[in-house]
């Protein structure tokens, strides 16, 4: 099984896309090497613009490029792309519905030792609240590469959430990414459905193995597109479930869990276990330690689902 960080997959796909589509441009804010847009610099250096440590200006310039027909991929860490430049994203990209792709790496806890100031645990909430913004978080190499291309074919603003650390492939080689469509990763026999996004898909797959030993066999669905949410699929499975579980490397306030609850509350109120960080900042540590501490590791997930099923 190959292992690649979604930010690395992003760089490869962006470079390929730049060769295929001459309207594709990349913008970076002194993090081209970290977010991996540097890969595109090698094949189309004249279409790769570094703005220095100036995220607000970078997003504003991306809006201008989009207004002039380009397809800008604007890159930074999730913290600074969504936080530092929030007003620019909302008012210069969201409001005019411009074709800017905001590609944000080191999301969630994956900024590891850098600690709380770099761990974006609120970015999906912020981006999701912007009318017309599409929010996507791929879970592995192949899904990322396809998403990078798919969003170039969609005309409108997108927030693509990427991780720093290598993740295992969880999708097969013939996988087909479809914007807005959830993916059933495992069809279980227990009346429980897990909805996971990004790196939590892999943790969930491992949790399924642990739950098997307890004779709990939930269904697992990968929600790569947090907005627009695959409401039909969410409701179909909520109706079949005693309870549902949302799993995200993000605050439980405003992210995937909230998006799901907004839909189920109105149509089929369902008990929900929210797995994510619980209204706290992150901190420095190794990735596995942090997942454990915040209850997001496979072991913690299995434990929490098992406990919730007894409530």
């Amino acid at each position, binding site marked *: 099984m190959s292992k690649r960080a979604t930010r690395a997959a992003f760089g490869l796909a962006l470079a390929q896309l730049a060769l295929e589509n001459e309207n594709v441009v990349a913008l970076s804010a002194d993090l081209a*090497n970290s977010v991996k847009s540097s890969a595109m610099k090698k094949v189309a250096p004249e279409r790769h613009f570094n703005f220095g*440590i100036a995220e607000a200006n970078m997003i504003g310039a991306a809006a201008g490029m989009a207004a002039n027909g380009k397809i800008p991929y604007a890159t930074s860490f999730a913290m600074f792309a969504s936080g530092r430049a929030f007003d620019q994203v909302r008012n210069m990209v969201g409001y005019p519905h411009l074709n800017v792709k905001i590609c944000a790496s080191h999301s969630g806890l994956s900024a590891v030792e850098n*600690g709380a100031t770099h761990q974006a645990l609120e970015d999906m909430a912020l981006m999701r609240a912007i009318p017309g913004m599409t929010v996507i978080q791929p879970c592995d190499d192949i899904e990322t590469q396809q998403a990078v291309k798919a969003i170039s074919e969609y005309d409108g603003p997108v927030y693509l959430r990427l991780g720093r650390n290598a993740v295992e492939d969880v999708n097969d080689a013939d996988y087909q990414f479809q914007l807005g469509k959830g993916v059933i990763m495992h069809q279980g026999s227990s009346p429980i459905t897990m909805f996971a996004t990004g790196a939590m898909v892999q943790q969930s797959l491992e949790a399924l193995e642990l739950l098997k030993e307890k004779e709990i066999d939930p269904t697992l669905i990968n929600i790569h597109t947090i907005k627009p949410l695959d409401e039909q699929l969410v409701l179909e499975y909520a109706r079949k479930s005693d309870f549902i579980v949302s799993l995200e490397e993000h605050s439980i306030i405003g992210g995937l869990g909230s998006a799901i609850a907004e839909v189920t509350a109105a149509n089929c109120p369902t008990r929900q276990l929210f797995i994510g960080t619980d209204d706290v900042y992150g901190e420095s*540590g190794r990735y596995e330690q942090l997942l454990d501490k915040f209850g997001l590791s496979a072991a913690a997930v299995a434990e929490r689902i098992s406990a919730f099923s007894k409530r």
Partner: protein
Amino acid sequence: MSELSEHANNIRKNILKMIHHAQSGHPGGSLSCTDILTALYFSVMNINKENINDVQRDKLVLSKGHASAGLYATLAEKGLISEEELLTYSQLGSRLQGHPNMNELPGVDMSTGSLGQGLSAAVGMCLANKLDGNGFRTYVICGDGEIQEGQIWEAAMSAGHYHLDNLLLFVDHNRLQSDGFNSEVMEIESIGAKFAAFNWNVLSCDGHDVDALVAVAKYAASCKGMPTVVIAETIKGKGVSFMEDQPDWHGKAPDDAQLAQALAELGGEQ
């Protein structure tokens, strides 16, 4: 070696040990501001065990928070934290977070990590000190890549406007940032002329001459009516031959052999 240079040398060795132990951190930018930190903590700022928890005193805002290892090693050299604690740097549960957290560790005067924000906080501290008429001074260290942030220039404008002569900013002018040389990533020159245009007193100094840094800081305190910026000419990775001026060593930890060589260059274990 002068006493001050000896402190700086010890701080450099601890920076390398911490980053090596954590296998995480920013050696280049920590080593480039070590002499500035040494001058401030051992000769300029009034800070010690007795006043460390005071709300009002001389303060430092390490705006380039990724140089946290430099700050922590300086606090240890000053006897404010233990050398053993340094080895918990950026590990789970440590007070020594990857970027400084003012609620965790006495001696960290402002939480930083998102670049370009520290100068604004210092402006606020200086305004508060003026209101209180207490004569304390506020020091800031910014990176030269960091000052590409627009907020820096908003802060510069306000410091000039309010005549904050109790503010001293050091720009760690090592000519490098994350993606390479400033001049290739985003030209920031001429730094002095930009601050002068916002009504700042502009000085420059060899950023590795601790005595000169002390002298320039003391001189700045006598300049009334405007804030002062010192453009400190530095070398990223200063003191370790294979790190000096190398873009690669911005955010990378040395391995065992590299640590051994670096420590040897700095005069060995003692």
